Every structure is written in structure tokens, then in C-alpha cells.
């Protein structure tokens, strides 16, 4: 081979390598785009809900309370008759069967929505107001175009007569979409139009908070001790190897551990963010210790020597100089560890967070769900309305993860000191 040939061959090899690299980046991006596009196209409609604009007349005869009733009285009062009487007027139905079909177009919370209107203004008796009532899941999906109406009637969840009413609503501009506050405020529900991630959000928040409070101080102190103070001997090596091993243990094993120790032995309340937080803290601990130690290691020894040489004690050199310099790396490692914990599902399923919880937890010892578990729960549900809810929850989860990772990167870029 001549010199030129060899040179050409080397250039070709480099070109080939660049091509492979570019191709793999392109393929990776393509997958990301497909994934995001898929989730968005399925999930974005969940942020809107379909509402039916209905006139509601508060008939004194159908209510046992008066104008100016107190909150408790209203809460206890029965609004069922008011609801029925007003809803069947939304469309000129001819008989009982048609009225029943008409009523099914509204969500199961129509009575509560009417009651809430009265709670806001307790002098409505004898008056007629216009209310935006939530539509049932079937109508919601139909209106959003997620439900095919050209199927034969027996294979549809919506009857031909209901389609007629729907078309009547559309024609009279009684049906529209607005912001789906239920999705953010409500807990889980059997009815997709009423189901929300409120409970899962609060549950995830408590879990991650407890995880942070437990894991962060322990991980940081353990890292500082191991990196700066521990004698370099076989015991330290053994601990180091095992921390690395623990970080690789499948998360479901931590779930089993929590099930046995926290639930069976210590008898902590099942399905609660408290147990979830402790479990996630155990799981996250080694995952924070590793980046923590790495950032301590990255502080050049010359800084330690400089401090020691002016007479700082070991403790002072570590806490005055090394730790502040390692802090950005430590914090970003912690945030990434927490982001992983936020997305963790398996251990939470084992400690009972898959339970169907309607109420939004008011403390870490109330039964609760969490975002990833909510995704899992809804993805198993048959109703069409849960498909968009599942994707929308994934969108929420992903945006939290992206924000957390962004903060981590920002902390590192902005505050990390560079040497040389």
C-alpha cells in the first residue's frame, strides 16, 4: 500500500465513523420525536373537557332549603330532583326512556355541580341561571373526535337517539370545550370525565419530599465521610463496592423489602406517601451517594493542600473549601436521583399504592397514589376516556422530569467552578 492509499483509507475511515455517528443521533432523535408525538396526540385532548350549557331553574318546591341557607344546610340538602327536572329540559324528550338516555349524556357529578353553583350564591331560589355542566365520558370522547360515530349502533356505547341529541346540542351551540380543571383538581374516579391527577400529584409530592428529607442528608454526610475522612482500607472498599451494587439493585426489590419491614413488621399504614417516601429514599440513597462522591473527588487535591498548608484542620479544609465546591455537583446528583424516584413505579405497586384512592391525601399518612402508578392504573382501564388521561399524565410526569433535569444541568453549569 502506498502512502497516498493509506492516507485515503484513513480519511475514509474517519468519514465512515462520522456517518455512523450522525445516523445514530438521527435515529435516536427520530424515536424521541415519535414517542413525544404519540403521547401528545393522544394526551393533549385531556386538558380540555366537554361541557353542556344548560339552564337551571332553582324551584323552591323541589328544595327543602331556603334562600340564604348556611353552608352546612346546602351541603346536606338534596339537589337530585332539581338536577333531574332541569336536565330533562335540555332536550324535548318524549318519554321516560328518552329522558333516561338524555340524562346519561351528563357526568355523574351534575348534581354536585348544581349544588356548587348554589353554594357560590345562596339566593338563587326562584331564579334561572345558565350552568356549564360536564358531559359524560362518551359524549366527551365523541365531541373530541376520539370516538367513531359511523359504527353500527350495537357496537357503539352511544345510542342513535343520543347521537340525535348530541347533534341538536351542537346545532344550538350548547356543547363546547373548556379547560379541564377536574384533571388537575380531582382524585381518581371510575368515571373518566371526573378522574384527575390531583391525588397522584399530592401523593408524589409527599413521597418525593420525604425521600429528599431522608436521603439527602444521609447521602451527603456518607459521601463526605467516605471520600474525605474514611481510612482507605478493605472495609471502606467493601462499603464502596456495595454502594455501587445497591444502586444497581432492581427497584422492585426495595418494594419487597419495604413490604416486609415497613408494612409487615413495623406496621406503617399501607398505600401511604410516608412508606413510599421511605422506600424511595432507600432506593435513591446509593444513587445520590455516587454522584456526590464523584463531585467531591473532582475537587482538585491542591485546594485541600492549600487549606491544610495555612493550618486548617482536616474538618475545616473539607467544610470550608471542598464541600462548597462540590455542592453544585451534589445538588444536581440529588435532583437527578429524585427525578428517578419520581418516575419509579414497581416498589410503589408493592407497597399498595395501586389502591383506588378517590380522596386527595391531606397528609403523608393518608392513602394515596402517585403519578407513575396512576399511569399504570389508567392504562389498564377499558374506558376510552382513560387513554387520553394516561397520556396526559405521562406528559405531566415528563414535564416534571424535564424541569428537574434542567435545574440539575443549570446548577452544574452556573455554579460549578472549573479548573485550568
Amino acid at each position, binding site marked *: 500500500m502506498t502512502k497516498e492509499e493509506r492516507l485515503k483509507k484513513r480519511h475514509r475511515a474517519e468519514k465512515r465513523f462520522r456517518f455512523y455517528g450522525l445516523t445514530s443521533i438521527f435515529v435516536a432523535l427520530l424515536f424521541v420525536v415519535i414517542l413525544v408525538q404519540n403521547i401528545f396526540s393522544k394526551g393533549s385532548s385531556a386538558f380540555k373537557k366537554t361541557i353542556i350549557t344548560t339552564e337551571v331553574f332553582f324551584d323552591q318546591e323541589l328544595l327543602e332549603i331556603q334562600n340564604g341557607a348556611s353552608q352546612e344546610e346546602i351541603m346536606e340538602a338534596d339537589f337530585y330532583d332539581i338536577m333531574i327536572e332541569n336536565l330533562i329540559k335540555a332536550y324535548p324528550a318524549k318519554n321516560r326512556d328518552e329522558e333516561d338516555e338524555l340524562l346519561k349524556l351528563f357526568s355523574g357529578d351534575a348534581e354536585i355541580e348544581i349544588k356548587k353553583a348554589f353554594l357560590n350564591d345562596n339566593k338563587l331560589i326562584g331564579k334561572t341561571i345558565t350552568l356549564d355542566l360536564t358531559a359524560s365520558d362518551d359524549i366527551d370522547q365523541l365531541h373530541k373526535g376520539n370516538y367513531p360515530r359511523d359504527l353500527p349502533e350495537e357496537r357503539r356505547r352511544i345510542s342513535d337517539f343520543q347521537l340525535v341529541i348530541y347533534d341538536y346540542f351542537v346545532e344550538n351551540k350548547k356543547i363546547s370545550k373548556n379547560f379541564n380543571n377536574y384533571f388537575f383538581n380531582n382524585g381518581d374516579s371510575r368515571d373518566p370525565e371526573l378522574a384527575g391527577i390531583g391525588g397522584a400529584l399530592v401523593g408524589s409530592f409527599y413521597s418525593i419530599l420525604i425521600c429528599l428529607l431522608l436521603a439527602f442528608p444521609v447521602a451527603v454526610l456518607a459521601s463526605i465521610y467516605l471520600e474525605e475522612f474514611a481510612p482507605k482500607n478493605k472495609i471502606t472498599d467493601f462499603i464502596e463496592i456495595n454502594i455501587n451494587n445497591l444502586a444497581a439493585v432492581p427497584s422492585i426489590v426495595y418494594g419487597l423489602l419495604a413490604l416486609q419491614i415497613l408494612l409487615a413488621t413495623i406496621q406503617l399504614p399501607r398505600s401511604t406517601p410516608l412508606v413510599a417516601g421511605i422506600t424511595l429514599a432507600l432506593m435513591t440513597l446509593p444513587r445520590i451517594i455516587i454522584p456526590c462522591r464523584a463531585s467531591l473527588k473532582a475537587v482538585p487535591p491542591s485546594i485541600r*493542600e492549600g*487549606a491544610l*498548608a*495555612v493550618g486548617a484542620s482536616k474538618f475545616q479544609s473539607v467544610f470550608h473549601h471542598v464541600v462548597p465546591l462540590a455542592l453544585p455537583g451534589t445538588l444536581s446528583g440529588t435532583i437527578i436521583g429524585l427525578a428517578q424516584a419520581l418516575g419509579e413505579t414497581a416498589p410503589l405497586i408493592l407497597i399498595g399504592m395501586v389502591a383506588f384512592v378517590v380522596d386527595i391525601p391531606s397528609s403523608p399518612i393518608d392513602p394515596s397514589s402517585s403519578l407513575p402508578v396512576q399511569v399504570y392504573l389508567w392504562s389498564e382501564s377499558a374506558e376510552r376516556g382513560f387513554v387520553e388521561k394516561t397520556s396526559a399524565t405521562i406528559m405531566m410526569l415528563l414535564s416534571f422530569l424535564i424541569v428537574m433535569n434542567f435545574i440539575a444541568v443549570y446548577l452544574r453549569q452556573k455554579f460549578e*467552578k472549573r479548573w485550568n
Partner: protein
Amino acid sequence: MSNVKIKSKNLNVYYGDKQALFDVNLDLNEKEVTALIGPSGCGKSTFIRCINRMNDVIDICKVTGNIEMDGININDKDLDVVSLRERVGMVFQKPNPFPKSIYDNISYGPKIHGKGETKSELDQIVENSLKKSALWEEVKDRLDEPGTSLSGGQQQRLCIARAISVNPEVILMDEPCSALDPIATAKIEELIDELKKTYTIVIVTHSMAQAVRVSQKTGFFHLGKLIEVGKTEKIFKNPDNKMTQDYITGRFG
């Protein structure tokens, strides 16, 4: 004849199984500059790191023998290294200012030793230290800028100021000019000349010329042994040992 400040007696240093220094007996005179020369890995740096017990940081390092400073053995297990390092300052090969402001770099030492209780006392210490290290005029208007923003030579003078700030008796310099250009080097050498009026200085250097320029006494190390020590003039003009002769004339090293 000047007083002996530091006296090493049968000093042996081991890094694990490897012996780095063999029976070093060396006297360092007070308010004088002693230069240590020798090829890389000969133990010069190891020797000066024994004087402020910097070798304690290295787990596998073991030091036997005595180093007496003002007649007290500083290689004693019970000796408090913090107060020793207050008396023996050190300047490293590569400038290593803390990534903090110039002011904080210098005030750190006095602060942890409880010198300079008030702000004005600290200000005074910072100013004096910077003046002694000939950096004051260059940085007096930007004391709150990071020490790392200075040039290499300025950084090294900042490190010298930091060492001076706790008012030590001895300053150890481990090849302080090896990372600097000739102009910065000249400034540091001038500074050393000035500092020796107040401090006992030990400098490790690879430059014969530097040793000749700054030191009054020179020790030549080879393979962990102190081959020859004497007045700088004598070592460079008329060494007793053949090996010293070969080294200073550039025949090996």
C-alpha cells in the same frame, strides 16, 4: 554563623514498601534561603513536606527519625499539626489559590487561627501580606475579584501572601516558579530575597541558576539520599562530590 532553625536527624520516609528518603541529616539556618536541588524523584519535595507534616495526608506514607525545630521534635505523633502549619507555611508548585476572592484567600488563614478579630485588623493583615508579596499595587483596587482570575505569576504571589498572612517562621517553597514565565520568575526571586530577612526559607528548584541566585545554602539530593550540602557558592564552584559536580554541570539529571 547563623542559628540553626530546623535540624533533621536520620530522617527516613517510606511510601508503602518504597523508601523515598534515606537517613537525611540536614540543618536549615534561620533567616536564610536553603535550596534543594536534584533530579526528579530524588526526594527533595518529600523532604520539605516532612517539615510541615504534609505527608500525613498520604495514608501509606511513614516517616521515621527526628526533625527538630527550635529544638523540639516536630515529627512527634502527639504534635498538633495545625499549630505546626501555622508556623511553617508552604507554597506549591502550581499556584493553588482558593476559588474565592483575593481578600478571602488571604484572610482565611488569620481567621481560622483567630488572628485579626475585627474587620480593620483583618484588612490590615491582608494589606500587609499583599505588600510583603509585592502584589498590593496590582490588586488593591480589586480585592473582591476571584483569586483565580489573576495571571499565573500573580496567583503564585497571592499564594505566597496567603502563606505569609498567618505570620509563619518558615516558608517552604516547592518549585514555586516551575509553572511561571521568566518575568514572573524574576519577580518571585526578588520577593524571596526580600522575604529571607524575616523568614527561614526552603526552596526546591530544578533550576541551578535559580538556586545560585536566591540561596545561601544548597543541598543536593539523589535517589533519596542527601549527597552533599554546603554554602551555595561552594556547591556550585567546587563541590566535594563527583555526583554533584556531574549534576550541576548537566551531565545527568
